[in-house]
């Protein structure tokens, strides 16, 4: 009789401890997901053949939230893209180093476009990075390399829209794709 009561007491005493342990385990599971929470892991880039200026314009659009986390990972220190122009410059450089276009003419010769930095801008929840290059006379196809943020998160997906003569060609950088080609 006395033995069963002591067992019962043990169980009752154990209950708060197990509850605490479960709570701890649950919290531990939550922590990593909290840190990486709300990342959209998508970015959109427009490549526009602008006939009125004769330039090829490249407009990258990133979620600031994603870009801030990524910049923190790349530069080893938390970055505040909203407040700091230097941080935005750093991030723009990072993007430009991971994006390239090669143009192919009708004879099949390819040449890499000399993309120049135009600027960056914050609009709402987005950070825009602008680049441009002189338009070539004869462009048959484009090869695009876009690994910005994709070298940090494997599930980052980048969409590239090429706009030429009113037509839109979409390239989707997902999974392990690093380079894509589109005929114009």
């Amino acid at each position: 009789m006395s033995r069963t009561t002591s067992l019962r007491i043990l169980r009752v005493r154990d209950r708060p401890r197990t509850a605490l342990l479960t709570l701890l385990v649950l919290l531990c599971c939550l922590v990593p997901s909290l840190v990486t929470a709300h990342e959209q892991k998508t970015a959109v880039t427009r490549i526009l053949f602008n006939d009125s200026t004769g330039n090829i314009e490249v407009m990258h659009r990133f979620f600031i939230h994603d870009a801030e986390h990524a910049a923190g990972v790349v530069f080893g220190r938390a970055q505040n893209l909203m407040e700091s122009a230097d941080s935005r410059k750093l991030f723009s450089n990072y993007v430009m180093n991971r994006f390239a276009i090669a143009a192919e003419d009708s004879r099949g010769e390819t040449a890499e476009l000399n993309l120049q930095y135009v600027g960056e801008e914050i609009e709402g929840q987005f950070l825009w990075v602008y680049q441009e290059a002189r338009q070539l006379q004869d462009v048959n196809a484009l090869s695009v390399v876009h690994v910005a943020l994709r070298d940090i998160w494997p599930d980052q997906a980048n969409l590239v829209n090429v706009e030429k003569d009113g037509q839109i060609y979409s390239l989707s950088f997902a999974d392990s794709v690093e380079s894509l080609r589109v005929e114009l």
Partner: protein
Amino acid sequence: MPVILEMEYADGSKEEMRLPAEIWRRNAKQVKKLIVSENELRSVAIDPMQETADADIENNYYPRRIIPSRIESFKSEGGGSLIGRDVMQDIKTQLKTDDDEQDN
């Protein structure tokens, strides 16, 4: 969506007209509106301040005009944003302290 019209007349005056969204009850594809005015009409713009969720603004002007691309408007004065000034950023304005007022 309501139809927001901005009409510019030959004498340089502008008139704004806001047609409520109920106008689309007559026909969901296209609507007509007769505007009677004593002035000669120069140009019409639909939703000039981009208040509605219109994805394509290239067909919003009569006579047609070339809409500058994002980078073009970014390079132009006033930055790339439509209004050219983000009111929320004004919160960062440094306030005058008591010392400043004494100097004046």
